[in-house]
């Protein structure tokens, strides 16, 4: 009887495999430690345009947009990648929102990352403009764009145009109008701000909003009235070479059509020696 040849043992090979794997892991750990903090933009460089990915995704463009969006959140949360914002606009504007033009989270989060993290407000506005064009009924996109112009760029005429667009959208949240009114105050156009806050106060559905609007109306009315009185006293001084003896003199001289009363219905204080009107009450918002 012939004995079957003994099979070679495999444990030497397994040990060799384990040793090599341990060496590879050690080398990789050392390499990671060495390259920590270096650029890691390689995964982004070959991302093509969303138009091509749409074809390549074989009808699963929504899923592709979702996957890329989730990946982008991870990617832009990695603070170790110093130049991670190099392609941020391309990723959100040309890829994710090309794959799914109605992906609201991608517009809003992308814009947020561009403004807050990447300090690229113009890129954010281009992304939001695309969102507005694709989703004209979504007030939040125009509101966000307006907020970027209002808060970050301090470009009030541009902010006003976005806010007006948001206000015109259906089912707009009431806060948009309040931002719109407040923006004019910050921009120095107190008369328009007063007009907007007054309209909010008159049309408010709940007591809280009405009370908030009244606070603004109160202080803005004081500012606007004192501004009007100051202009009129200066016109009076230019015409007669002296300050008016009392505020009603302004009406009588025809330099002020209607002498305003303060928000509490009392006449404004007036210092005839200095030709300066003042408000005897206290401002509600204290500014």
């Amino acid at each position, binding site marked *: 009887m012939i004995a079957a040849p003994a*099979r*070679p*043992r*495999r*444990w030497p*090979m*397994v040990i*060799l*495999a*384990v*040793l*090599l*794997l341990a*060496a*590879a*892991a050690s*080398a*990789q*750990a050392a*390499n*990671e430690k060495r*390259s920590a903090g*270096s*650029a*890691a*933009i*390689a*995964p*982004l*460089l*070959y991302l093509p345009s969303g138009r091509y990915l749409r074809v390549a995704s074989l009808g699963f463009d929504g899923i592709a947009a979702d996957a890329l969006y989730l990946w982008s959140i*991870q*990617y832009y*949360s*990695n603070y170790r990648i110093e130049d991670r914002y190099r392609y941020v606009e391309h990723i959100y504007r040309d890829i994710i929102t090309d794959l799914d033009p109605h992906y609201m989270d991608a517009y809003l989060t992308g814009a947020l990352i561009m403004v807050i993290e990447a300090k690229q407000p113009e890129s954010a506005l281009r992304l939001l403009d695309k969102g507005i064009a694709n989703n004209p009924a979504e007030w939040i996109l125009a509101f966000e764009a307006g907020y970027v112009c209002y808060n970050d760029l301090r470009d009030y005429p541009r902010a006003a145009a976005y806010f007006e667009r948001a206000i015109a959208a259906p089912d707009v949240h009431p806060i948009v109008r309040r931002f719109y009114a407040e923006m004019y105050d910050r921009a120095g156009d107190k008369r328009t701000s007063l007009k907007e806050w007054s309209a909010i106060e008159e049309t408010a559905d709940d007591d809280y909003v009405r009370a908030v609007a009244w606070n603004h109306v109160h202080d803005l009315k004081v500012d606007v009235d004192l501004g009007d009185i100051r202009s009129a006293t200066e016109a009076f001084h230019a015409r007669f070479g002296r300050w008016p003896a009392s505020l009603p003199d302004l009406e009588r001289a025809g330099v002020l059509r209607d002498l305003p009363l303060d928000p509490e219905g009392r006449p404004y204080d007036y210092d005839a020696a200095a030709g300066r009107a003042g408000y005897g009450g206290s401002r509600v918002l204290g500014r």
Partner: protein
Amino acid sequence: MLLGIGLVSREIERRTVYVLLAKPMHRAEFVLGKYVGLVLTLLVNTGVMAAVFVAVLLAKGIADPALGVAIVMLYMEFLLITALAILFSCLSNPIISCLLTLALYVIGHLVWSLDLLRARLASGAAKAACTFLSLVLPNLAPFDIKGQVVHGVPVAPGSLAFAAGYLVLYGGAVLALACATFQRKELQ
């Protein structure tokens, strides 16, 4: 990859492996011979494609030596994937081998995301699991420098040496496992 996944299992299926193993040959030699054959085939494929690519670039007046490095590293990535394909081919049938190799190819390019996950985890055990996986799974990122080269981003010094070393160590480990698997495999 598609060549590698059926390389061993198909020999077993068609029973042609019996003819080979009847010769005075170690089973590990059979596996390594298959691997080397595939490595040479890939070398020819990659070489021809690279030659055409370089010819087109030269015709357009583009000459960047870094592209050569990128092609070499791409070839090294092929070698590692081929080693994985051979291992799975020793373990399973072509379909399962294909799926497993494809999965490891995708995972290999996403190992970096385990670092992101680790940074967000609170549990020490979960962090350790992430670290372990990121070191044990094949990492194909060191071989992928084509993006940097095309866009003129400087490639870290020592990248080629590290990639080559990693290929030798990890690829060696995978081939040793493939040999160990095939040595005790019942061939019926």
